Protein backbone atom coordinates (compact mmCIF):
# COMPACT_ATOMS: atom_id res chain seq x y z
CA UNK A 1 0.00 0.00 0.00
CA UNK A 2 1.17 3.44 -0.70
CA UNK A 3 1.41 6.09 1.90
CA UNK A 4 -1.73 8.12 2.14
CA UNK A 5 -1.75 11.83 1.90
CA UNK A 6 -2.00 13.59 5.24
CA UNK A 7 -5.53 14.22 6.31
CA UNK A 8 -7.32 17.15 7.70
CA UNK A 9 -7.58 15.65 11.07
CA UNK A 10 -9.81 17.34 13.58
CA UNK A 11 -7.82 16.00 16.50
CA UNK A 12 -4.79 17.98 17.54
CA UNK A 13 -1.37 16.49 16.85
CA UNK A 14 0.81 15.59 19.74
CA UNK A 15 4.38 16.14 18.66
CA UNK A 16 7.12 13.92 20.04
CA UNK A 17 8.58 14.71 23.38
CA UNK A 18 11.43 17.12 22.77
CA UNK A 19 14.87 15.74 23.29
CA UNK A 20 13.65 12.18 23.51
CA UNK A 21 15.96 9.87 21.62
CA UNK A 22 14.59 7.33 19.15
CA UNK A 23 15.69 4.41 21.28
CA UNK A 24 14.16 5.86 24.41
CA UNK A 25 10.91 6.52 22.60
CA UNK A 26 10.90 2.99 21.18
CA UNK A 27 11.48 1.50 24.57
CA UNK A 28 8.65 3.60 26.00
CA UNK A 29 6.30 2.38 23.26
CA UNK A 30 7.34 -1.25 23.79
CA UNK A 31 6.95 -1.00 27.56
CA UNK A 32 3.44 0.33 27.20
CA UNK A 33 2.04 -3.14 26.60
CA UNK A 34 3.33 -6.37 28.16
CA UNK A 35 2.56 -8.25 24.94
CA UNK A 36 5.11 -6.14 23.10
CA UNK A 37 7.75 -6.94 25.69
CA UNK A 38 6.96 -10.63 25.31
CA UNK A 39 7.28 -10.30 21.55
CA UNK A 40 10.65 -8.60 21.88
CA UNK A 41 11.87 -11.22 24.33
CA UNK A 42 10.86 -14.03 21.98
CA UNK A 43 12.65 -12.41 19.07
CA UNK A 44 15.77 -11.80 21.12
CA UNK A 45 15.78 -15.40 22.37
CA UNK A 46 15.53 -16.72 18.83
CA UNK A 47 18.22 -14.36 17.64
CA UNK A 48 20.53 -15.57 20.40
CA UNK A 49 19.64 -19.12 19.47
CA UNK A 50 20.67 -18.45 15.90
CA UNK A 51 23.93 -16.82 16.88
CA UNK A 52 25.09 -19.03 19.71
CA UNK A 53 22.96 -22.19 19.35
CA UNK A 54 25.36 -24.23 17.25
CA UNK A 55 28.22 -23.39 19.62
CA UNK A 56 26.45 -25.25 22.43
CA UNK A 57 26.57 -28.59 20.66
CA UNK A 58 29.14 -30.73 18.84
CA UNK A 59 29.15 -30.52 15.04
CA UNK A 60 27.48 -33.89 14.66
CA UNK A 61 24.80 -34.19 17.30
CA UNK A 62 25.09 -37.38 19.32
CA UNK A 63 22.73 -40.15 18.31
CA UNK A 64 21.28 -42.82 20.54
CA UNK A 65 19.79 -45.87 18.83
CA UNK A 66 18.33 -46.94 22.15
CA UNK A 67 16.25 -43.81 22.51
CA UNK A 68 14.58 -43.52 19.12
CA UNK A 69 11.53 -41.26 19.34
CA UNK A 70 11.93 -41.10 23.11
CA UNK A 71 9.22 -39.10 24.85
CA UNK A 72 10.17 -35.82 26.53
CA UNK A 73 12.27 -36.38 29.62
CA UNK A 74 14.88 -34.59 31.71
CA UNK A 75 17.61 -35.74 29.38
CA UNK A 76 15.58 -34.98 26.26
CA UNK A 77 13.27 -32.08 27.16
CA UNK A 78 11.55 -32.20 23.77
CA UNK A 79 11.97 -35.90 23.11
CA UNK A 80 14.16 -37.36 20.39
CA UNK A 81 14.10 -37.96 16.65
CA UNK A 82 14.44 -41.07 14.50
CA UNK A 83 18.04 -41.64 15.54
CA UNK A 84 17.70 -40.68 19.18
CA UNK A 85 19.04 -37.14 18.85
CA UNK A 86 17.57 -34.57 21.21
CA UNK A 87 14.87 -32.53 19.51
CA UNK A 88 15.80 -29.54 21.63
CA UNK A 89 19.34 -29.68 20.30
CA UNK A 90 18.00 -30.00 16.77
CA UNK A 91 15.72 -27.00 17.15
CA UNK A 92 18.48 -24.89 18.67
CA UNK A 93 21.17 -25.82 16.20
CA UNK A 94 18.70 -25.72 13.34
CA UNK A 95 17.74 -22.14 14.07
CA UNK A 96 20.89 -20.62 12.63
CA UNK A 97 20.39 -21.68 9.04
CA UNK A 98 16.71 -20.79 9.06
CA UNK A 99 17.11 -17.41 10.71
CA UNK A 100 20.25 -16.40 8.90
CA UNK A 101 18.81 -17.33 5.53
CA UNK A 102 15.63 -15.46 6.38
CA UNK A 103 17.59 -12.40 7.44
CA UNK A 104 19.59 -12.54 4.23
CA UNK A 105 16.40 -12.98 2.23
CA UNK A 106 14.84 -9.96 3.92
CA UNK A 107 17.95 -7.89 3.31
CA UNK A 108 18.06 -8.86 -0.35
CA UNK A 109 14.36 -8.17 -0.71
CA UNK A 110 14.73 -4.76 0.86
CA UNK A 111 17.88 -3.87 -1.07
CA UNK A 112 16.45 -4.95 -4.43
CA UNK A 113 12.99 -3.61 -3.74
CA UNK A 114 14.10 -0.25 -2.37
CA UNK A 115 16.88 0.20 -4.89
CA UNK A 116 14.74 -0.53 -7.91
CA UNK A 117 11.76 1.36 -6.52
CA UNK A 118 13.89 4.45 -5.80
CA UNK A 119 15.62 4.43 -9.16
CA UNK A 120 12.40 3.85 -11.00
CA UNK A 121 10.51 6.51 -9.14
CA UNK A 122 13.27 9.12 -9.23
CA UNK A 123 14.61 8.71 -12.72
CA UNK A 124 11.19 8.11 -14.34
CA UNK A 125 11.06 7.94 -18.11
CA UNK A 126 12.61 4.98 -19.90
CA UNK A 127 14.43 3.65 -16.83
CA UNK A 128 11.15 3.60 -14.98
CA UNK A 129 9.37 1.78 -17.79
CA UNK A 130 12.07 -0.83 -18.05
CA UNK A 131 12.38 -1.37 -14.29
CA UNK A 132 8.64 -1.59 -13.86
CA UNK A 133 8.40 -4.16 -16.64
CA UNK A 134 10.97 -6.21 -14.77
CA UNK A 135 8.98 -5.77 -11.59
CA UNK A 136 5.81 -6.89 -13.35
CA UNK A 137 7.68 -9.89 -14.58
CA UNK A 138 8.81 -10.83 -11.09
CA UNK A 139 5.29 -10.34 -9.78
CA UNK A 140 3.77 -12.40 -12.57
CA UNK A 141 5.92 -15.50 -12.33
CA UNK A 142 4.40 -17.95 -9.88
CA UNK A 143 6.71 -17.53 -6.92
CA UNK A 144 6.70 -20.79 -5.07
CA UNK A 145 7.13 -23.12 -8.03
CA UNK A 146 9.86 -20.81 -9.26
CA UNK A 147 11.58 -21.15 -5.91
CA UNK A 148 11.40 -24.91 -6.17
CA UNK A 149 13.00 -24.83 -9.59
CA UNK A 150 15.64 -22.29 -8.61
CA UNK A 151 16.45 -24.29 -5.52
CA UNK A 152 17.50 -27.26 -7.61
CA UNK A 153 19.62 -25.11 -9.89
CA UNK A 154 21.38 -23.43 -7.01
CA UNK A 155 23.06 -25.23 -4.21
CA UNK A 156 21.56 -24.16 -0.93
CA UNK A 157 24.36 -25.32 1.31
CA UNK A 158 24.99 -21.73 2.29
CA UNK A 159 22.14 -19.78 3.86
CA UNK A 160 23.27 -16.75 1.87
CA UNK A 161 22.43 -18.56 -1.35
CA UNK A 162 19.02 -19.49 -0.01
CA UNK A 163 18.47 -15.93 1.12
CA UNK A 164 19.53 -14.60 -2.24
CA UNK A 165 17.05 -16.77 -4.10
CA UNK A 166 14.24 -15.91 -1.72
CA UNK A 167 15.13 -12.26 -2.05
CA UNK A 168 15.38 -12.26 -5.81
CA UNK A 169 11.90 -13.70 -6.15
CA UNK A 170 10.28 -11.54 -3.52
CA UNK A 171 11.12 -7.90 -4.11
CA UNK A 172 8.39 -7.03 -6.60
CA UNK A 173 5.75 -5.72 -4.24
CA UNK A 174 8.17 -3.61 -2.26
CA UNK A 175 9.66 -2.07 -5.40
CA UNK A 176 6.24 -0.97 -6.55
CA UNK A 177 5.36 0.58 -3.21
CA UNK A 178 8.70 2.38 -2.91
CA UNK A 179 8.38 3.65 -6.45
CA UNK A 180 4.98 5.20 -5.86
CA UNK A 181 6.20 6.82 -2.64
CA UNK A 182 9.23 8.17 -4.43
CA UNK A 183 7.02 9.54 -7.15
CA UNK A 184 4.95 11.44 -4.62
CA UNK A 185 8.02 12.59 -2.65
CA UNK A 186 9.87 13.93 -5.66
CA UNK A 187 7.08 16.43 -6.21
CA UNK A 188 7.37 17.73 -2.67
CA UNK A 189 8.85 21.11 -2.08
CA UNK A 190 12.03 20.09 -0.32
CA UNK A 191 13.03 17.70 -3.07
CA UNK A 192 12.38 20.31 -5.70
CA UNK A 193 14.41 22.71 -3.64
CA UNK A 194 17.27 20.21 -3.43
CA UNK A 195 17.16 19.80 -7.16
CA UNK A 196 17.09 23.53 -7.58
CA UNK A 197 20.26 23.73 -5.48
CA UNK A 198 21.90 21.47 -7.98
CA UNK A 199 22.51 18.62 -5.56
CA UNK A 200 23.52 15.42 -7.37
CA UNK A 201 20.83 12.80 -8.03
CA UNK A 202 22.36 10.16 -5.78
CA UNK A 203 22.43 12.63 -2.94
CA UNK A 204 18.77 13.45 -3.39
CA UNK A 205 17.81 9.79 -3.65
CA UNK A 206 19.82 8.54 -0.69
CA UNK A 207 19.82 11.52 1.64
CA UNK A 208 16.57 13.27 0.90
CA UNK A 209 14.11 10.66 -0.31
CA UNK A 210 15.32 7.45 1.30
CA UNK A 211 15.20 8.66 4.94
CA UNK A 212 11.57 9.55 4.42
CA UNK A 213 10.76 5.96 3.69
CA UNK A 214 12.89 4.52 6.49
CA UNK A 215 9.99 3.46 8.67
CA UNK A 216 8.14 1.78 5.83
CA UNK A 217 11.25 -0.10 4.81
CA UNK A 218 12.03 -1.14 8.37
CA UNK A 219 8.56 -2.60 8.77
CA UNK A 220 8.97 -4.41 5.50
CA UNK A 221 12.23 -5.89 6.67
CA UNK A 222 10.58 -7.60 9.63
CA UNK A 223 7.65 -8.80 7.59
CA UNK A 224 10.00 -10.12 4.93
CA UNK A 225 11.91 -12.08 7.53
CA UNK A 226 8.85 -14.02 8.59
CA UNK A 227 7.77 -14.49 5.00
CA UNK A 228 11.18 -15.86 4.14
CA UNK A 229 11.12 -18.25 7.09
CA UNK A 230 7.85 -19.74 5.89
CA UNK A 231 9.05 -20.01 2.33
CA UNK A 232 12.31 -21.73 3.14
CA UNK A 233 10.85 -24.00 5.78
CA UNK A 234 8.13 -24.85 3.26
CA UNK A 235 10.71 -25.73 0.62
CA UNK A 236 12.54 -28.02 2.98
CA UNK A 237 9.27 -29.46 4.17
CA UNK A 238 8.29 -30.44 0.64
CA UNK A 239 11.61 -32.19 0.37
CA UNK A 240 12.53 -30.74 -3.00
CA UNK A 241 15.60 -28.85 -1.87
CA UNK A 242 19.04 -30.27 -1.25
CA UNK A 243 20.43 -29.69 2.21
CA UNK A 244 23.58 -30.20 4.23
CA UNK A 245 22.62 -29.22 7.69
CA UNK A 246 19.76 -29.85 9.95
CA UNK A 247 17.11 -27.15 10.06
CA UNK A 248 13.47 -26.78 11.04
CA UNK A 249 12.08 -27.52 7.62
CA UNK A 250 14.12 -30.68 7.35
CA UNK A 251 12.83 -31.71 10.77
CA UNK A 252 9.24 -31.19 9.61
CA UNK A 253 9.89 -33.12 6.44
CA UNK A 254 11.51 -36.05 8.21
CA UNK A 255 8.89 -36.05 10.95
CA UNK A 256 6.01 -36.23 8.50
CA UNK A 257 7.45 -38.30 5.69
CA UNK A 258 9.80 -40.56 7.62
CA UNK A 259 8.66 -40.53 11.19
CA UNK A 260 4.96 -40.73 10.48
CA UNK A 261 4.25 -38.04 13.02
CA UNK A 262 0.83 -37.55 11.48
CA UNK A 263 0.02 -41.19 11.92
CA UNK A 264 1.55 -42.06 15.24
CA UNK A 265 1.87 -40.26 18.52
CA UNK A 266 5.41 -41.46 19.09
CA UNK A 267 7.00 -39.19 16.54
CA UNK A 268 4.76 -36.30 17.44
CA UNK A 269 7.35 -34.47 19.60
CA UNK A 270 9.68 -34.50 16.60
CA UNK A 271 7.03 -32.78 14.50
CA UNK A 272 5.85 -30.43 17.19
CA UNK A 273 9.29 -29.16 18.23
CA UNK A 274 10.03 -27.22 15.03
CA UNK A 275 6.35 -26.43 14.59
CA UNK A 276 6.15 -24.82 17.99
CA UNK A 277 9.39 -22.98 17.30
CA UNK A 278 7.86 -21.52 14.13
CA UNK A 279 4.62 -20.64 15.89
CA UNK A 280 6.48 -19.03 18.78
CA UNK A 281 8.58 -16.96 16.46
CA UNK A 282 5.45 -15.99 14.56
CA UNK A 283 3.81 -14.96 17.78
CA UNK A 284 6.86 -12.94 18.77
CA UNK A 285 6.94 -11.12 15.46
CA UNK A 286 3.20 -10.47 15.49
CA UNK A 287 3.35 -9.06 18.98
CA UNK A 288 6.40 -6.95 18.24
CA UNK A 289 5.05 -5.67 14.92
CA UNK A 290 2.35 -3.92 16.91
CA UNK A 291 5.03 -1.91 18.71
CA UNK A 292 6.93 -1.24 15.52
CA UNK A 293 3.76 0.00 13.92
CA UNK A 294 3.39 2.55 16.63
CA UNK A 295 7.03 3.60 16.74
CA UNK A 296 7.04 4.38 13.06
CA UNK A 297 3.52 5.66 12.77
CA UNK A 298 2.87 8.63 15.08
CA UNK A 299 -0.75 8.80 14.08
CA UNK A 300 -1.29 5.45 15.69
CA UNK A 301 0.82 6.40 18.64
CA UNK A 302 -1.44 9.25 19.50
CA UNK A 303 -4.61 7.24 19.03
CA UNK A 304 -3.55 4.46 21.32
Amino acid sequence: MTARTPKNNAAPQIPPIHGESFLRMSWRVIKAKPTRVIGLVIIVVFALMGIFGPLLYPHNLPINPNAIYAPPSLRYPLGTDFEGTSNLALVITGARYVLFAALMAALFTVVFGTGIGLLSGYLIGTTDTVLMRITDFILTIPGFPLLVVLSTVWNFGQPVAMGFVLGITGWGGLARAVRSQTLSLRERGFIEAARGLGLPGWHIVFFEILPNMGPYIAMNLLVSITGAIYAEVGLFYLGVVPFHVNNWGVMLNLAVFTGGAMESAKALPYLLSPLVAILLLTLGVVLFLDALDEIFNPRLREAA
Partner: protein
Amino acid sequence: MREAIRLIKRLIGGALMVLIVATFTFFLVRLMPGNPVQAAYNTLITRGMTPVQAANEVRVMYGFMPHESLWAQYVHYLNQLIHFNLGQSISYEGVSVLHIVLSAAPWTITLVLSGVVASFLLGVTAGVVAAMKRSSGMGSVLTVSGSLLHGIPQFVMALLLAFVFTTLWPIFPFGAPYGGALTPGFNLPFIGSLAFHAVLPVVAYALSSYGGWLLTMKSSVVSVMGDDFVLAAELRGLKPSIRFGYIARNAILPLFTIFALSLGFMFGGSVFIENIFDYNGLGNLLLTSINNRDYPLMTGAFLLITIAVILSNIVADFLYTAVDPRIRRP
Protein backbone atom coordinates in the same frame (compact mmCIF):
# COMPACT_ATOMS: atom_id res chain seq x y z
CA MET B 1 -14.16 2.55 -28.26
CA ARG B 2 -11.47 4.05 -26.13
CA GLU B 3 -11.97 1.20 -23.68
CA ALA B 4 -11.63 -1.30 -26.50
CA ILE B 5 -8.35 0.21 -27.60
CA ARG B 6 -7.13 0.10 -24.05
CA LEU B 7 -8.16 -3.52 -23.74
CA ILE B 8 -6.33 -4.41 -26.92
CA LYS B 9 -3.26 -2.58 -25.69
CA ARG B 10 -3.39 -4.44 -22.41
CA LEU B 11 -3.86 -7.76 -24.16
CA ILE B 12 -0.87 -7.13 -26.38
CA GLY B 13 1.16 -6.20 -23.33
CA GLY B 14 -0.05 -9.36 -21.62
CA ALA B 15 0.89 -11.51 -24.58
CA LEU B 16 4.33 -9.97 -24.54
CA MET B 17 4.70 -10.76 -20.86
CA VAL B 18 3.58 -14.34 -21.51
CA LEU B 19 6.29 -14.58 -24.11
CA ILE B 20 8.92 -13.28 -21.72
CA VAL B 21 7.86 -15.64 -18.96
CA ALA B 22 7.72 -18.53 -21.40
CA THR B 23 11.24 -17.76 -22.54
CA PHE B 24 12.50 -17.40 -19.01
CA THR B 25 11.00 -20.64 -17.76
CA PHE B 26 12.03 -22.47 -20.90
CA PHE B 27 15.69 -21.79 -20.25
CA LEU B 28 15.46 -21.95 -16.48
CA VAL B 29 14.00 -25.43 -16.23
CA ARG B 30 16.53 -26.74 -18.70
CA LEU B 31 19.27 -25.60 -16.37
CA MET B 32 18.01 -28.02 -13.75
CA PRO B 33 20.39 -30.88 -13.08
CA GLY B 34 19.17 -34.39 -13.72
CA ASN B 35 17.10 -35.61 -16.62
CA PRO B 36 13.81 -37.44 -17.00
CA VAL B 37 15.24 -40.45 -18.76
CA GLN B 38 17.71 -41.19 -16.01
CA ALA B 39 15.00 -40.83 -13.39
CA ALA B 40 12.75 -43.24 -15.28
CA TYR B 41 15.59 -45.67 -15.95
CA ASN B 42 16.45 -46.00 -12.31
CA THR B 43 12.83 -46.36 -11.31
CA LEU B 44 12.59 -49.29 -13.68
CA ILE B 45 15.81 -50.79 -12.33
CA THR B 46 14.53 -50.61 -8.79
CA ARG B 47 11.39 -52.40 -9.93
CA GLY B 48 13.58 -55.34 -10.82
CA MET B 49 14.05 -54.86 -14.55
CA THR B 50 17.36 -55.91 -16.00
CA PRO B 51 19.59 -53.01 -16.97
CA VAL B 52 19.34 -53.89 -20.67
CA GLN B 53 15.57 -54.09 -20.52
CA ALA B 54 15.32 -50.83 -18.62
CA ALA B 55 17.67 -49.11 -21.03
CA ASN B 56 15.53 -50.28 -23.92
CA GLU B 57 12.38 -49.25 -22.16
CA VAL B 58 13.50 -45.69 -21.62
CA ARG B 59 14.60 -45.46 -25.21
CA VAL B 60 11.04 -44.50 -26.08
CA MET B 61 11.02 -41.85 -23.42
CA TYR B 62 14.39 -40.71 -24.70
CA GLY B 63 12.63 -40.25 -28.02
CA PHE B 64 10.55 -37.57 -26.39
CA MET B 65 13.63 -35.73 -25.28
CA PRO B 66 14.59 -33.03 -27.70
CA HIS B 67 17.99 -33.53 -29.24
CA GLU B 68 18.45 -30.33 -31.14
CA SER B 69 20.44 -27.42 -29.80
CA LEU B 70 18.77 -25.45 -27.02
CA TRP B 71 18.19 -22.59 -29.42
CA ALA B 72 16.50 -24.79 -32.02
CA GLN B 73 14.36 -26.25 -29.23
CA TYR B 74 13.39 -22.77 -28.20
CA VAL B 75 12.38 -21.77 -31.71
CA HIS B 76 10.38 -24.96 -32.00
CA TYR B 77 8.76 -24.28 -28.65
CA LEU B 78 7.75 -20.77 -29.64
CA ASN B 79 6.36 -22.05 -32.89
CA GLN B 80 4.26 -24.53 -30.96
CA LEU B 81 3.15 -21.85 -28.54
CA ILE B 82 1.82 -19.67 -31.32
CA HIS B 83 -0.35 -22.59 -32.32
CA PHE B 84 -1.56 -23.00 -28.73
CA ASN B 85 0.37 -26.23 -28.44
CA LEU B 86 2.25 -26.71 -25.19
CA GLY B 87 4.08 -29.74 -26.50
CA GLN B 88 4.21 -33.31 -25.27
CA SER B 89 5.03 -34.52 -21.82
CA ILE B 90 8.19 -36.56 -21.39
CA SER B 91 7.27 -38.51 -18.29
CA TYR B 92 3.83 -39.25 -19.71
CA GLU B 93 5.58 -40.25 -22.92
CA GLY B 94 3.84 -38.16 -25.46
CA VAL B 95 0.57 -37.20 -23.85
CA SER B 96 -0.20 -33.60 -24.70
CA VAL B 97 0.80 -31.22 -21.94
CA LEU B 98 -2.35 -29.22 -22.44
CA HIS B 99 -4.44 -32.33 -21.86
CA ILE B 100 -2.62 -33.24 -18.66
CA VAL B 101 -2.76 -29.72 -17.33
CA LEU B 102 -6.42 -29.34 -18.17
CA SER B 103 -7.35 -32.56 -16.44
CA ALA B 104 -5.59 -31.43 -13.28
CA ALA B 105 -6.96 -27.89 -13.37
CA PRO B 106 -10.59 -28.54 -12.29
CA TRP B 107 -9.48 -29.99 -8.96
CA THR B 108 -7.32 -27.03 -8.18
CA ILE B 109 -9.97 -24.59 -9.27
CA THR B 110 -12.78 -26.06 -7.17
CA LEU B 111 -10.48 -26.35 -4.21
CA VAL B 112 -8.83 -22.98 -4.29
CA LEU B 113 -11.75 -21.01 -5.65
CA SER B 114 -13.94 -22.06 -2.74
CA GLY B 115 -11.04 -21.40 -0.39
CA VAL B 116 -10.38 -17.93 -1.79
CA VAL B 117 -14.03 -16.94 -1.83
CA ALA B 118 -14.69 -18.29 1.66
CA SER B 119 -11.65 -16.63 3.16
CA PHE B 120 -12.34 -13.38 1.33
CA LEU B 121 -15.93 -13.13 2.59
CA LEU B 122 -14.99 -14.16 6.12
CA GLY B 123 -11.84 -12.11 6.29
CA VAL B 124 -13.38 -8.95 4.91
CA THR B 125 -16.37 -9.14 7.23
CA ALA B 126 -14.17 -9.81 10.22
CA GLY B 127 -11.82 -7.05 9.09
CA VAL B 128 -14.61 -4.50 9.07
CA VAL B 129 -15.77 -5.57 12.52
CA ALA B 130 -12.21 -5.54 13.84
CA ALA B 131 -11.72 -2.01 12.55
CA MET B 132 -15.05 -0.63 13.75
CA LYS B 133 -14.71 -2.19 17.18
CA ARG B 134 -10.99 -1.83 17.43
CA SER B 135 -11.00 -0.50 20.93
CA SER B 136 -13.26 -3.26 22.22
CA GLY B 137 -12.33 -6.77 23.30
CA MET B 138 -14.04 -8.29 20.29
CA GLY B 139 -11.93 -6.16 17.97
CA SER B 140 -8.68 -7.13 19.62
CA VAL B 141 -9.62 -10.81 19.61
CA LEU B 142 -10.38 -10.62 15.91
CA THR B 143 -7.19 -8.76 15.13
CA VAL B 144 -5.03 -11.14 17.13
CA SER B 145 -6.74 -14.14 15.54
CA GLY B 146 -6.08 -12.60 12.16
CA SER B 147 -2.44 -11.90 12.89
CA LEU B 148 -1.84 -15.37 14.23
CA LEU B 149 -3.67 -17.18 11.45
CA HIS B 150 -1.89 -14.96 8.97
CA GLY B 151 1.35 -15.87 10.67
CA ILE B 152 0.86 -19.62 10.57
CA PRO B 153 2.35 -20.98 7.37
CA GLN B 154 -0.14 -22.71 5.12
CA PHE B 155 1.50 -26.09 5.30
CA VAL B 156 1.52 -25.99 9.08
CA MET B 157 -2.19 -25.25 9.04
CA ALA B 158 -2.88 -28.08 6.61
CA LEU B 159 -0.75 -30.50 8.60
CA LEU B 160 -2.53 -29.65 11.82
CA LEU B 161 -5.99 -29.99 10.29
CA ALA B 162 -5.13 -33.24 8.59
CA PHE B 163 -3.70 -34.61 11.79
CA VAL B 164 -6.62 -33.60 13.97
CA PHE B 165 -9.48 -34.49 11.66
CA THR B 166 -8.29 -37.53 9.82
CA THR B 167 -6.04 -39.25 12.31
CA LEU B 168 -6.86 -38.14 15.81
CA TRP B 169 -10.55 -37.75 15.19
CA PRO B 170 -11.36 -39.16 11.79
CA ILE B 171 -14.57 -37.41 10.86
CA PHE B 172 -13.54 -36.22 7.43
CA PRO B 173 -12.52 -38.36 4.48
CA PHE B 174 -9.02 -38.17 3.18
CA GLY B 175 -7.36 -38.92 -0.07
CA ALA B 176 -9.91 -38.67 -2.86
CA PRO B 177 -11.85 -35.71 -4.21
CA TYR B 178 -15.11 -37.69 -4.13
CA GLY B 179 -16.47 -41.17 -3.45
CA GLY B 180 -15.25 -43.41 -6.22
CA ALA B 181 -18.56 -45.22 -6.73
CA LEU B 182 -20.36 -42.04 -7.74
CA THR B 183 -20.86 -40.85 -11.28
CA PRO B 184 -19.45 -37.37 -11.80
CA GLY B 185 -22.01 -34.91 -13.05
CA PHE B 186 -24.84 -32.79 -11.85
CA ASN B 187 -26.29 -35.13 -9.31
CA LEU B 188 -26.78 -34.55 -5.64
CA PRO B 189 -24.79 -37.46 -4.20
CA PHE B 190 -21.80 -36.58 -6.34
CA ILE B 191 -21.83 -32.89 -5.48
CA GLY B 192 -22.45 -33.72 -1.84
CA SER B 193 -19.54 -36.10 -1.78
CA LEU B 194 -17.35 -33.60 -3.60
CA ALA B 195 -18.19 -30.94 -1.04
CA PHE B 196 -17.69 -33.24 1.91
CA HIS B 197 -14.30 -34.39 0.66
CA ALA B 198 -13.28 -30.80 0.05
CA VAL B 199 -14.10 -29.56 3.54
CA LEU B 200 -10.66 -30.01 5.09
CA PRO B 201 -8.52 -28.71 2.26
CA VAL B 202 -10.83 -25.76 1.69
CA VAL B 203 -10.86 -24.95 5.38
CA ALA B 204 -7.09 -25.20 5.49
CA TYR B 205 -6.82 -22.83 2.57
CA ALA B 206 -9.45 -20.46 3.89
CA LEU B 207 -8.00 -20.32 7.40
CA SER B 208 -4.53 -19.60 6.20
CA SER B 209 -5.58 -16.76 3.94
CA TYR B 210 -8.35 -15.44 6.18
CA GLY B 211 -5.86 -13.60 8.36
CA GLY B 212 -4.40 -11.75 5.43
CA TRP B 213 -7.79 -10.53 4.25
CA LEU B 214 -8.75 -9.54 7.76
CA LEU B 215 -5.62 -7.50 8.36
CA THR B 216 -5.70 -5.85 4.95
CA MET B 217 -9.37 -5.00 5.27
CA LYS B 218 -8.91 -3.78 8.79
CA SER B 219 -6.12 -1.41 7.88
CA SER B 220 -8.05 -0.27 4.85
CA VAL B 221 -11.13 0.43 6.95
CA VAL B 222 -9.10 2.23 9.61
CA SER B 223 -7.51 4.31 6.92
CA VAL B 224 -10.84 5.15 5.29
CA MET B 225 -12.35 5.95 8.67
CA GLY B 226 -9.76 8.67 9.01
CA ASP B 227 -10.85 10.17 5.72
CA ASP B 228 -12.63 13.52 5.81
CA PHE B 229 -15.76 12.31 4.12
CA VAL B 230 -16.40 9.83 6.91
CA LEU B 231 -16.20 12.57 9.51
CA ALA B 232 -18.34 14.69 7.21
CA ALA B 233 -20.93 11.96 6.95
CA GLU B 234 -21.05 11.79 10.71
CA LEU B 235 -21.34 15.55 11.08
CA ARG B 236 -24.12 15.56 8.54
CA GLY B 237 -25.96 13.05 10.64
CA LEU B 238 -26.04 10.26 8.11
CA LYS B 239 -27.60 7.05 9.35
CA PRO B 240 -25.02 4.57 10.69
CA SER B 241 -26.03 2.04 8.06
CA ILE B 242 -25.39 4.53 5.26
CA ARG B 243 -22.13 5.59 6.85
CA PHE B 244 -21.11 1.96 7.10
CA GLY B 245 -21.88 1.56 3.43
CA TYR B 246 -19.66 4.54 2.59
CA ILE B 247 -16.77 3.13 4.60
CA ALA B 248 -17.16 -0.43 3.40
CA ARG B 249 -17.32 0.45 -0.28
CA ASN B 250 -14.31 2.72 -0.09
CA ALA B 251 -12.32 0.31 2.04
CA ILE B 252 -12.92 -2.73 -0.10
CA LEU B 253 -11.72 -1.08 -3.29
CA PRO B 254 -8.01 -1.74 -2.85
CA LEU B 255 -8.81 -5.35 -1.97
CA PHE B 256 -10.40 -5.93 -5.33
CA THR B 257 -7.10 -5.99 -7.10
CA ILE B 258 -5.63 -8.38 -4.59
CA PHE B 259 -8.69 -10.58 -4.88
CA ALA B 260 -8.51 -10.74 -8.65
CA LEU B 261 -4.79 -11.46 -8.45
CA SER B 262 -5.28 -14.26 -5.98
CA LEU B 263 -7.80 -15.77 -8.35
CA GLY B 264 -5.04 -15.71 -10.94
CA PHE B 265 -2.46 -17.28 -8.70
CA MET B 266 -5.05 -19.87 -7.82
CA PHE B 267 -3.98 -21.75 -10.91
CA GLY B 268 -0.61 -22.28 -9.33
CA GLY B 269 -2.58 -24.42 -7.03
CA SER B 270 -1.71 -24.68 -3.53
CA VAL B 271 1.23 -26.99 -3.58
CA PHE B 272 1.16 -27.65 0.13
CA ILE B 273 -2.53 -28.28 0.49
CA GLU B 274 -2.73 -30.48 -2.56
CA ASN B 275 0.29 -32.37 -1.34
CA ILE B 276 -0.98 -32.88 2.18
CA PHE B 277 -4.57 -33.65 1.25
CA ASP B 278 -3.59 -35.71 -1.74
CA TYR B 279 -5.43 -33.70 -4.37
CA ASN B 280 -4.42 -34.34 -7.94
CA GLY B 281 -4.40 -30.68 -8.88
CA LEU B 282 -2.00 -28.38 -10.65
CA GLY B 283 0.20 -27.87 -7.62
CA ASN B 284 0.89 -31.55 -7.27
CA LEU B 285 1.34 -31.86 -11.00
CA LEU B 286 3.91 -29.12 -11.01
CA LEU B 287 5.75 -30.74 -8.13
CA THR B 288 5.80 -34.16 -9.78
CA SER B 289 6.90 -32.69 -13.06
CA ILE B 290 9.75 -30.94 -11.29
CA ASN B 291 10.77 -34.18 -9.61
CA ASN B 292 10.59 -36.08 -12.90
CA ARG B 293 12.35 -33.25 -14.74
CA ASP B 294 9.52 -33.26 -17.23
CA TYR B 295 10.48 -29.96 -18.88
CA PRO B 296 7.53 -29.52 -21.23
CA LEU B 297 5.08 -30.25 -18.44
CA MET B 298 6.86 -27.81 -16.15
CA THR B 299 6.93 -25.01 -18.67
CA GLY B 300 3.35 -25.77 -19.59
CA ALA B 301 2.12 -25.56 -16.04
CA PHE B 302 4.15 -22.41 -15.43
CA LEU B 303 2.71 -20.84 -18.53
CA LEU B 304 -0.86 -21.65 -17.59
CA ILE B 305 -0.35 -20.00 -14.21
CA THR B 306 1.29 -16.99 -15.80
CA ILE B 307 -1.49 -16.54 -18.33
CA ALA B 308 -4.04 -16.79 -15.55
CA VAL B 309 -2.22 -14.18 -13.51
CA ILE B 310 -1.89 -11.79 -16.42
CA LEU B 311 -5.51 -12.22 -17.46
CA SER B 312 -6.73 -11.72 -13.93
CA ASN B 313 -4.56 -8.63 -13.74
CA ILE B 314 -6.26 -7.20 -16.79
CA VAL B 315 -9.67 -8.19 -15.46
CA ALA B 316 -8.84 -6.60 -12.11
CA ASP B 317 -7.78 -3.46 -13.88
CA PHE B 318 -11.00 -3.14 -15.86
CA LEU B 319 -13.08 -4.15 -12.87
CA TYR B 320 -11.41 -1.44 -10.87
CA THR B 321 -12.29 1.11 -13.48
CA ALA B 322 -15.87 -0.02 -13.25
CA VAL B 323 -16.13 0.35 -9.50
CA ASP B 324 -13.95 3.40 -8.92
CA PRO B 325 -15.22 6.52 -10.71
CA ARG B 326 -11.96 8.34 -10.01
CA ILE B 327 -10.04 6.07 -12.33
CA ARG B 328 -12.59 6.24 -15.12
CA ARG B 329 -10.99 7.89 -18.11
CA PRO B 330 -12.69 11.05 -19.26
